[in-house]
């Protein structure tokens, strides 16, 4: 028994030593001298891609995710997968020194760390998260000054909208971001947390699901009837706009719930606008689009 164990020990020890060397190797090349900036950036998060371009680091972006469409120049860049299917091999072959990943991509983060590639870890948060991310990003890419300018500009823009609408009555608003076509089924609405709720509040609306502390609420017809929204805003990505002629049919779908003030007073709106659904540097414009919809009299 003991001899058997001893016979096993040597190869195991050798293997362990080899593994230790292999594991240590990338760490040694890692930790590059803390550069003031990064030269090759890959972003897997569209919202952060927009921030990178806006703080002037755009020319250093070498690849983006398959969901990226803005700014238009990203369409010419190689695409390295996205949230669920990042292509690690392609990412590494592009020799990035900073990769923007989403917080839930734990495997990818480990692989990048092992390869000694810098990671910028991002998660969607509220509107404050947008400016906080911009500042952190600027510090990381060496564009802190422009990032600070951008963050301050966003803060000012949001504040300006808040001031414009602050003395207006706040319409009770249902903010829908997903629904089955041609039916009131599978309705997803913004709950009382997250950037959409923050934008709605800044735009002078009162979220009917404010008390539900979730980003997404599946709204039943009963809840929608009981909440009696004054305004219903359906928002989606720009590229999912309904075909001409289907818009009226989709609006008609709401007629079933005729007792809702929003339906009775024809205040159901479709806003197909990336600036509302992507928490990037265009949130000011997105918030303004919402505010124009909720308070048309204030914005003429």
């Amino acid at each position, binding site marked *: 028994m003991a001899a058997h164990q001893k016979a096993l020990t040597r190869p195991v020890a050798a293997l362990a030593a080899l593994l230790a060397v292999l594991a240590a190797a990338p760490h040694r090349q890692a930790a590059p001298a803390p550069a003031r900036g990064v030269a090759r950036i890959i972003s897997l998060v569209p919202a952060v891609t927009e921030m990178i371009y806006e703080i002037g680091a755009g020319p250093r972006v070498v690849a983006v995710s398959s969901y990226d469409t803005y700014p238009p120049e990203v369409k010419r860049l190689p695409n390295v997968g996205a949230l669920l299917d990042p292509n690690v091999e392609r990412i590494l072959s592009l020799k990035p020194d900073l990769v923007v990943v989403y917080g839930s991509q734990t495997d990818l983060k480990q692989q990048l760390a092992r390869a000694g590639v810098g990671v910028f870890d991002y998660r969607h948060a509220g509107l404050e998260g947008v400016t906080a991310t911009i500042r952190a990003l600027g510090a990381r890419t060496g564009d802190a000054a422009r990032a600070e300018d951008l963050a301050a500009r966003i803060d000012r823009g949001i504040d300006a909208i808040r001031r414009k609408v602050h003395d207006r009555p706040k319409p009770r608003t249902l903010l829908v971001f997903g629904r089955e076509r041609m039916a009131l089924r599978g309705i997803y609405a913004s709950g009382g947390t997250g950037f959409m709720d923050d934008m709605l509040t800044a735009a002078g609306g009162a979220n009917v699901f404010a008390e539900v502390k979730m980003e997404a609420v*599946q709204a039943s017809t009963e809840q929608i009837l009981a909440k009696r929204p004054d305004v219903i805003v359906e928002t989606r990505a720009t590229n999912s706009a309904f075909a001409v002629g289907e818009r009226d049919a989709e609006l008609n779908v709401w007629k079933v719930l005729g007792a809702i003030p929003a339906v009775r007073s024809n205040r159901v709106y479709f806003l197909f606008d990336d600036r509302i659904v992507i928490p990037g540097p265009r949130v000011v414009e997105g918030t303004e689009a919402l505010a124009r919809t909720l308070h048309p009299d204030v914005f003429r």
Partner: protein
Amino acid sequence: MTLAWRFARTVLGFGALAVATVLLAPLVGATAIDFRRAFDFSIPFADNVDAQIFFVARLPRTLAGACVGGLFAASGVVFQGLLRNPLATPFTLGVSTGAALGAVLAITFNWSLGFIGISAVPVAAFVGSLVAVAIVYALAQARHRGLSTTVLLLAGVTMNAFFSAMILFVQYFASFADTYRTLRWLMGDLDVSSYEPLLAALPTATVAFVVFAWLARPLNLLSLGPDSAESRGLDVARAQRAAFLSASLATGAAVSIGGPIGFVGIIIPHLVRLMVGPDHRLVLPAATLFGAAFLVGCDLIARTILAPVELPVGIITALLGGPFFLWLLIRKP
């Protein structure tokens, strides 16, 4: 005790349960409504929120639950009788996965039937179920004069796996929000918010139930084995064909209304058999009525327990059904 009397007792008993559930369920909900206002027809319906909550949100939803529950439970009975396998469910032979593939395609590629004013998802689901039925049926008949239940089972299980793989393949092209909606569809949802999906499924459901009524005696004979059934004068191939097609259509119709809500088609038939015995002339009507009551009850829990948020009804049936299924497996006969 004569059969007629036992039949009357069974139908009255389970019928009373189903009717009571369907009448009571719309009275309870996640929000408080004023019933005097809801039934005050002097207030225009367009202005009456209470009436709309009752007649637009709760009532169609309750009826959808009853309809889907009854269809799943009855087709569960028929599939178990046809395959002579107590663990068969309405989803065993690929019908629901075919329906799911149809629905997932409609959701992911944003299909629209806007020009005729209806949602594409239930239509695509029903068409998907028909495609699955056609493929499995063709396979099971290809090498036999009759319908081989062994081939039927193998073909069904294979198609289930294949359609599941296709769903994952389609998911690969979906945006994140669509993936979420797809996943939610797969958990079942009875909030139909209009009577149209029910009316659309009515012809199929009626045909299925007429065939089920005829099937009760053939299924009793089949339970003795195909050879004994044949020797007692049953046209086995015809009965098997009728059972497969009617139960598949019923499942397709139910899935197109409420999505693939699991476990109803297995718990209910077994519970009912424990109560009324194995005679399909009693099991079929009892399972239909009990299934209706059960799903309406599960949906009531789903829509109230976490209000104002709601739980997918498929989670409730699974939480109740999973342990029951295990108990069924280990129970001494």
